[in-house]
């Protein structure tokens, strides 16, 4: 599985995820494609993720869900979005985010993530 971490996810999560689940190829928005998407709009990011078949992990629930509904209406596919909530998995605790991502990736397995919308839940300990 390939993932893109939105700006809200602590960069240290990349390192934590490499240790927890080395099979997941994650990038952080701050470095992805030379930082070209640091202030990009949701649609631009979702389209670029789709080019790479990359799932987006974001904490911003205010705007991307609206984009997904619009895209669904016009049958524009995306490569999957995982929404997280700061009340459930704290974005600045890399180990928790990495464990939750690894658990979700295990659950999804090799399934096609096209148009997938998931909620990030804390990994059971």
């Amino acid at each position, binding site marked *: 599985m390939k993932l893109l971490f*939105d*700006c*809200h996810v*602590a*960069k240290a999560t990349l390192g934590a995820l490499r240790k927890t689940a080395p099979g997941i190829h994650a990038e952080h*928005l*701050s470095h992805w494609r030379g930082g070209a998407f*640091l*202030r*990009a*709009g*949701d*649609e631009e990011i979702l389209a670029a993720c789709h080019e790479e078949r990359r799932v987006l992990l974001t*904490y*911003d*629930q*205010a*705007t*991307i*869900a*609206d*984009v997904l*509904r*619009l895209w669904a209406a016009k049958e524009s596919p995306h490569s999957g979005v995982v*929404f997280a*909530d*700061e009340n459930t998995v*704290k974005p*600045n605790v890399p180990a928790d985010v990495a464990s939750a991502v690894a658990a979700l990736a295990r*659950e999804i*397995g090799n*399934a096609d993530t096209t148009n*997938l*919308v*998931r*909620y990030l839940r804390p990994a059971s300990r």
Partner: protein
Amino acid sequence: MTLRLPKGVKRGVERLAARFGHKPAQLGARLIEEGLRRRDFPQIDLRETAAGRMAYIGGTRFAVYWVAGIVPGRMAVEAFAKEYDLPVERIRAALAYAHAFPDEIESDRAHAEANGKWIERQDAAARSEKTMDDNGKPKSKEKAAR
């Protein structure tokens, strides 16, 4: 108040109003209001999104409502700035903006919360798809675990 606009500006406002389905006068008032906000909060970007206009910390994807929901209650300004590699002044500007426009920030937060319910439904549907077979019947534990 009546404003006299140069011809080119008037045409521009009319074109933009037609594009977004507003009346030119409404759009003109909104542009002036945004201009004043930009003057008072130069570190904040107002962007058009699929959910309407949203305030962001300039040059980033950090929505002001999101930052204001974390700082300072769950994270100190300095800690947030360090974690996300942002100047402290920009975080303070976001908080000042949130303080100046509480209704707007509350509306953004409420919208995110409503979306959260939609996300939970999508998530539940995806989870149940994984545990149902093609006939909508629960898969056996063994099958579901595959």
